[in-house]
């Protein structure tokens, strides 16, 4: 008996078993590295093309004018109407969806019973996974005439319509981040408030939301980032006119819709081609910063709440 155990433990590792172990390890390591590699390559490619745009057209051209006429003879490449178009769709969308998403998040975390939550949550997840083209189609087919009549808009497709479409996909993001943030608030704070004879709604308003406010705001920022980067809905519903306007009822054109609509038909190597890469890189940097900010806020809140427990 003893001898058997002894021989088992003392069995020497063969060259083959060591090799297999190492091979398996590196196989998994490489798989992990591939995503990093692709990301680096994408960044390099984008930055290279964007840099070509700067050297060919000049960075002034993008911010000096206020017109985006890339195909006219006297071509203009101003990014400003595109930025305005993006903000005119993304900001109203964030406001609408924050309002609804935060209420939904509060309901799920604080008010809904366990069973109700289990019924509602899958629906929200399906919502989050809905192809954006479907939402774009719905808002185009059903929403556009309705909203045109409601707001008496000059055009059927406008920034506000796109904002409504965007807010549909933002609600799940904001509501689930709100719910996570509220749930991270330690339960004994709720008990403390109840024991003081404070009603549930006063408790939510004065205890839970203040403790989770940074997580909720991170959700809003993340939703805004998603609204900026969203393509299909704005392409379908915003009207795609690169107008310099602050009127929500005008047609606008976003950065994403410009790239999606024009890159397929542009001559490779032309100034127009490079300019599309420039605005794409611009968008990438902005969304990267937005995501980074919200991640930092969430991380800080987690640490703070952990200290409290």
């Amino acid at each position, binding site marked *: 008996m003893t001898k058997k155990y002894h021989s088992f433990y003392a069995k020497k590792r063969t060259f083959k078993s060591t090799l297999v172990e190492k091979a398996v390890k590196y196989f998994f390591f490489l798989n992990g590295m591939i995503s990093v590699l692709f990301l680096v390559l994408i960044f390099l490619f984008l930055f290279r093309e964007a840099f070509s745009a700067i050297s060919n057209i000049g960075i002034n051209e993008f911010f000096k004018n206020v017109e985006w006429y890339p195909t006219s003879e006297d071509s203009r490449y101003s990014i400003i109407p595109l930025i305005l178009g993006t903000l005119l769709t993304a900001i109203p969308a964030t406001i609408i969806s924050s309002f609804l998403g935060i209420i939904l998040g509060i309901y799920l975390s604080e008010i809904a019973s366990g069973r109700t939550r289990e019924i509602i949550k899958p629906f929200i997840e399906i919502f989050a996974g809905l192809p954006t083209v479907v939402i774009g189609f719905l808002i185009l087919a059903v929403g556009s005439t309705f909203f045109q009549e409601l707001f008496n808009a000059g055009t059927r497709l406008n920034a506000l319509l796109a904002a409504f479409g965007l807010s549909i996909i933002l609600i799940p993001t904001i509501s689930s981040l709100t719910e996570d943030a509220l749930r991270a608030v330690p339960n004994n704070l709720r008990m403390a*408030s109840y024991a003081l004879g404070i009603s549930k709604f006063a408790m939510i308003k004065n205890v839970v939301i203040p403790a989770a406010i940074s997580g909720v705001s991170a959700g809003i920022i993340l939703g805004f980032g998603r609204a900026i980067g969203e393509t299909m809905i704005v392409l379908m519903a915003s009207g795609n006119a690169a107008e310099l306007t602050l009127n929500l009822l005008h047609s606008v054109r976003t950065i994403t819709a410009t790239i999606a609509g024009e890159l397929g038909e542009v001559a490779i190597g032309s100034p127009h081609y490079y300019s599309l890469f420039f605005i794409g890189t611009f968008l990438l940097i902005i969304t990267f910063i937005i995501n980074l900010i919200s991640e930092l806020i969430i991380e800080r809140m987690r640490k703070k709440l952990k200290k*409290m427990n």
Partner: protein
Amino acid sequence: MKEVKIKIKNLSVYFNYIQALNDVSLEIFENKVTCLIGPSGCGKTSLLRSLNRMNDMIYGFRMKGEVLIDDIDIYDKDIDVVNLRRLVGMVFQQSNLFPKSIYDNLIFAPKILGVKDKSELEEIAEKVCTQTSIWDEVKDRLNESALNLSAGQQQRLCIARALTVNPDILLMDEPSSSLDPVSTSKIEDLLFDLKRNYTILIVTHNMQQAARVSDYTAYLYLGQLVEYDKTTKIFTNPANKQTEDFLTGRFG
């Protein structure tokens, strides 16, 4: 002349299919400290929490019997639970101050309940802190985060906070179980001062503490009230053999 503040009549409490309290009847006297003792899981906390209806929030809670406070059935369907909890304050085992300043913790409830006058709020804060003799320790740091206080100070601030809504009754669920001896003795001293104005119920695992602070003691075992009498009687000459075994450490 001692008066009955809380009358518990044939109280049984269930959580789903588990029975936590079985036919408990006892009377709690006004301006006295009543201690609930017994082994873990015997229903002390369930009993305590049925007095301010904190059990209501636990899924699967059912109860039978009656709890009368000042001869009013608190489980009557017309009772406003939120209001009841103002009358019956509670201090928890773990201090649960809000992540706000000391002052904001103290004025939290009065402010929500409609006290708007600043000087009135300051008055309340000073009054409850003096009552809990923590005023000298916190008066210069009212705007500091309450979580910077020591564990003992936090727990006493919790007691002070519970007093801000003017309760009649104070429920304490092992208020000093996670504190050092000095902080514990401070809280015990506090109980002597507080019982002049409040009726106090306290759950404790510390038998010496029960003997020191309480006027009456109830011994519970497996959800049943085994013995309830004056503390001096229970600790010197318990009527029940089970109580004696528990108190002398032969059991529990």
